[in-house]
């Protein structure tokens, strides 16, 4: 559903960690529903912090944040019922099997046992994990674990999906698989906020990109706009010029 109301909207989002200064120093975001939005920035820019705040996992000091029409600070339960998150490090249970992970998280998403089993089957199939379904996740390769993590984040068909560096450490084939999955999701109406260090990834997937550096937004626009704004030929050059100029 594409409506006028942005699926993610923040204004002046600020957060500091005790004794470390500002991690976020006024982030403004407006992500239209049903689009893939990139959050791009160097290490320590504040990407993970932003995602964790929007996913109700971290608090913030000031500013406003709305996700899927819900106020992040006031209606955590409402936000949680409408989002999925796949963090920078796969957060799945290493001892359980892939199937057990999916079933457990599906049950915690308030699905009935039978529904949970069916959903697990569906997602195992979709992410090419059927063969490994019964094995402990500990023995999965990095790529398989990422795919499982992504599958877990999609259990309840979230309206808004947060992907924090979803393809870091993946081989090219797995990366393309994740890209395909993201596109499919966007086509079915899910809003995706994706952080990445791979500019090619942002270029291919995102309709708009917000560049952040040291907790501030330094540029915003479509990939084409960002490239032309610095007269550079590709996004890599734009990235370097913009973050250095900030």
């Amino acid at each position: 559903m594409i409506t006028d109301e942005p699926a993610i909207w923040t204004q002046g989002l600020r957060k500091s960690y005790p004794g470390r200064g500002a991690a976020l120093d006024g982030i403004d975001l407006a992500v239209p529903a049903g689009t893939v939005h990139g959050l791009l920035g160097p290490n320590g820019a504040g990407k993970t912090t932003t995602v964790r705040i929007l996913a109700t996992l971290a608090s913030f000091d000031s500013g406003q944040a709305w996700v899927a029409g819900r106020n992040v600070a006031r209606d955590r339960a409402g936000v949680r019922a409408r989002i999925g998150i796949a963090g920078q490090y796969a957060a799945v249970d290493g001892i359980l099997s892939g199937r057990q992970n999916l079933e457990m998280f599906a049950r915690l998403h308030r699905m009935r046992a039978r529904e949970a089993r069916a959903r697990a089957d569906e997602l195992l199939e979709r992410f090419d994990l059927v063969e490994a379904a019964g094995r402990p996740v500990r023995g999965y390769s990095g790529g398989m674990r990422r795919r499982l993590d992504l599958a877990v984040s999609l259990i309840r068909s979230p309206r808004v999906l947060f992907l924090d560096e979803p393809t870091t450490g993946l081989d090219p084939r797995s990366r393309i698989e994740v890209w395909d999955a993201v596109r499919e999701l966007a086509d079915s109406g899910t809003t995706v906020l994706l952080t990445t260090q791979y500019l090619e990834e942002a270029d291919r997937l995102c309709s708009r990109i917000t560049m952040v550096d040291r907790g501030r937004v330094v540029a915003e626009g479509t990939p084409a706009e960002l490239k032309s704004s610095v007269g550079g030929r590709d996004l890599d050059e734009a990235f370097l010029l913009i973050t250095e100029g900030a």
Partner: protein
Amino acid sequence: MTTVTEPTVHGSRITWATVDTWVVAKRHLLHLVRRPDELLGTLMIPVMAVAMFGFVFGEAFGVAMNVPGDEYREFLLPGLFALTMAFGIGNTTISVAEDVRGGVLDRMRSLPMSPVAVLAGRALADVILAVVELSILLALGTLFGWQAHLGVGAVIAALGLLVLLRMAFSWVGILLGLLVSGPEAAMKYFALVFPLAMVADTIVPTDLMPGWLAVPAEWNPLSSTVIATRELFGNMAAPATSWVGEHALTMAVLWPVAIIAICLPLAMARLRRLGR
């Protein structure tokens, strides 16, 4: 373009908290089933306790107490039941610390599940495990000539007290697991279980301890449970000389309830603070 389904949440809050708690408990129990060596290691504690204290030290302690070895063992077993409950703290703390590190706890916090269930599931798993451990201990004890003399009702009441104690210790372990810097630190603190389990009326009667140690031993929550269960099993007990000793049955209920009433809210507050 397909529409994205709205999540439907039905049922009451308490029903869901119960279901969530069970799902989380099942996860911890599956961990044990999927790693049988871990399960074996856990169940070895009660077995070793009976073997070591019952037979290696049993005769000597019996002499010190002026009773034969098998009579000492009758005194000892309720102590070992409670001691086993205390040793469970280690596992609980380590497992919670691992979850904080591994990110599964974060994932659970991002779900629309009941927040208290994230932790209560661990406590429920511990209680179920405690029942298994107690069954092993009862079987072993019976094998070695230990007996309950006052009927089934009293035995069930005694086991209830032990399980209640374990539940309290489980919340202590959960709180510690959320406070320590990681599973490695949790393992190092494990040594603290020894004074908790032994500066108590478990293995050595408190009147055989030096005076300065006898007081904390008498006030150790473990002691109340041990004395109360000795009464309920009709086993030999040292005569109570202190106020806590005389009110063991009441204290065996009050202590665990008080511990849970303190540790549960603290653990929940700590869980919320993890996201800062």
